């Protein structure tokens, strides 16, 4: 008998002979989902404000941009302040975002090794959705966000969020928007640890600096 059969047999014996009903149909009624879809009532502008406040509370650096025309200048200034030689950009990033930037742009290619990516100082991406109540940005590997490794290995990540389109209030609302079959990364503030006497230290393995640019659209 395979271990699969052994384990499933043990589960069935453990649960006894009593009829249990069909799992899927009974599930609809098995769980009371009276918890909130979002906490508190806010205007759209207040939701964006909450996102900015919660991002900053977890030590992401937040910038606001009135429209997409201001964006290239802002990105240029943010990169200049860090001075990386190379900047990684995902294949589908709108090219005009980087039109004012000085550093050499490199693209993530299947052939580039992790060591190649490690030589890059900064990365600029878009995002899939941002969650105001938790101060979270979510990446789903779309062309403007690229593969997971590009936002992981470089030490400096600039993430552009289109507000209010890409902002939701809460975790339940974010999950509704996401496709589970895509590789998803939820980022709340920069990499951090509290393992040594509970002193919070930013950055162990992921980017130590996370800058989030909130761009107002239309």
């Amino acid at each position, binding site marked *: 008998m395979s*271990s*699969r059969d*052994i*384990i*499933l047999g*043990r*589960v069935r*014996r*453990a*649960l006894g002979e009593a009829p*249990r009903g069909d*799992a*899927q149909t*009974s*599930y609809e009624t*098995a*769980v*009371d*989902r009276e*918890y*909130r879809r979002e*906490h508190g009532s806010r205007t759209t502008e207040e939701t964006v404000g909450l996102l900015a406040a919660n991002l900053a509370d*977890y030590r992401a650096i937040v910038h606001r941009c009135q429209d997409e025309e201001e964006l290239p200048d802002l990105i240029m200034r943010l990169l200049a302040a860090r001075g990386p030689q190379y900047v990684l950009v995902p294949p589908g990033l709108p090219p005009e975002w980087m039109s004012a930037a000085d550093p050499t742009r490199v693209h993530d290619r*299947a052939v580039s090794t*992790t*060591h190649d990516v*490690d030589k890059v100082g900064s990365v600029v991406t878009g995002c899939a959705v941002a*969650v105001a*109540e*938790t101060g*979270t940005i979510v990446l789903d*590997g779309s062309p403007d966000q690229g*593969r*997971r*490794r590009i936002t*992981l290995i470089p030490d400096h990540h600039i993430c552009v969020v289109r507000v209010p389109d890409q902002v939701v209030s809460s*975790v*339940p609302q974010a*999950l509704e928007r996401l496709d*589970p*079959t895509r*590789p*998803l*990364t*939820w*980022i*709340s503030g920069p*990499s*951090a*640890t*509290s*393992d*040594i*006497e*509970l002193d919070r*230290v930013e*950055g*162990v*393995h*992921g980017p130590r600096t996370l800058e989030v640019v909130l761009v107002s659209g239309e």
Partner: protein
Amino acid sequence: MSGTFVGMPAFPVAAHEAVGNTTLRANLRHATHTIRDKRAKAVAELDDWALLREAGKQIKDHTLRHLDTYLVQLEEAVTAAGGVVHWAADAAEANRIVTRLVKETGESEVVKVKSMATQEIGLNEALEEAGIAAYETDLAELIVQLGHDRPSHILVPAIHRNRGEIRDIFAKEMGEWGRPAPEDLTDTPADLAEAARLHLREKFLRAKVGISGANFMVAETGTLVVVESEGNGRMCLTLPETLISVVGIEKIVPTWRDLEVFLQTLPRSSTAERMNPYTSMWTGTSDTETADGPRAFHLVLLDNGRTDTLADEVGRQALRCIRCSACLNVCPVYERAGGHAYGSVYPGPIGAILSPQLRGTTSEIDASLPYASSLCGACYEVCPVAIDIPEVLVHLRERVVQGGPATRQGNRVVLKPAKGHAAERAAMRAAGWAFVHPGALRAGQRVASRTRRFHPRTLPGPGRAWSATRDLPQVPAEPFRDWWQRTHGKKESGK
């Protein structure tokens, strides 16, 4: 302290030693109080916390009730997404599977993201025997591994170490395994974290095989979820060519939507944050077009005592646990005894009910764990999936003292009472006899009342240690039964 958990002394002995360690007590007190205060604030931000807690409980209970269905559904979904599912009935089988999978890649080293399940089965030791080096990459796990030590907390495994100790461990041990610590390493947390970053980065960048656990598995979609802070999890889940995840069968949730409950309750209960810095979700392997992440994904579904726990209708609720560690941080016993005294990778209140169920109550340490509690109930209050830990503790005490039916490795067995509980068993038997013989009970109580002047303040013989720190309760001048008879007896008989 080093070595494995096998042959650990029973909880009272280990706890007695730990309580004498003033550094440990100070570290623990600081840590647990800090986290518990922060947690209370984080929870207070959500005015529907009680509803989220109830929903989490209901989701997990439903899943356990239909676990066979969801395991099969998960297997289908993971397979459809390009993953390979393996089933492991016990620790030895899980270790054999993982060792074989690593060997098939031709590699002799792996990077690991912190995983309770792989600690539980002793995977690192099994890999080492097979000539495979397993590098722990969580900062606290690295401290534990380099220090030849054992984890003592679910969330912050090196909580028993202070910064000076950590500096010394890094300075002495890092060079043995790879990039040495810098010569001038100080004991500031930022410097220590930087040393770990540099030491581990070379391993991440060359690793071909990653090993993880998972916080959740979604049956509907085949999605796995890992929740972490440092980015070491993202490294292990993203960079290697092969990813092997070892996950307990109880970690399933039925639907994608269910994550909305646990992604709200887990971070706030564990690190007291609105959200942990990084959460990774992946479904099978990526298609070749995007080539994002490992090309080969293996999921090892682990039983190792979980189905035995499922068979116990009272104890089953321990399988709801989402490993947040909130119960540790509020436990007065954990705060003083520390995690090592529990002799298991699962310390604290949840460990006191999980370990004796996963491993059985035959060993001395496992028989003692249901007693590692004051039954104050604080653990139940904070539990985000409402596990009634005191209820299970009492249930397991009964099993230890009286024996009775249980399930071990899928077989129904009748347990004998554990050794070393003869006095308690005799007392319980005598009490049981007295309660069904009211005349004897009344006579005994009267004797006790009338001799109260002669009662000692401390117990003689084996009870002396117990009464050394406590006053014995005063016996009242008149038994309640006599008082009732005297003041109410006539009225009742007059009806």
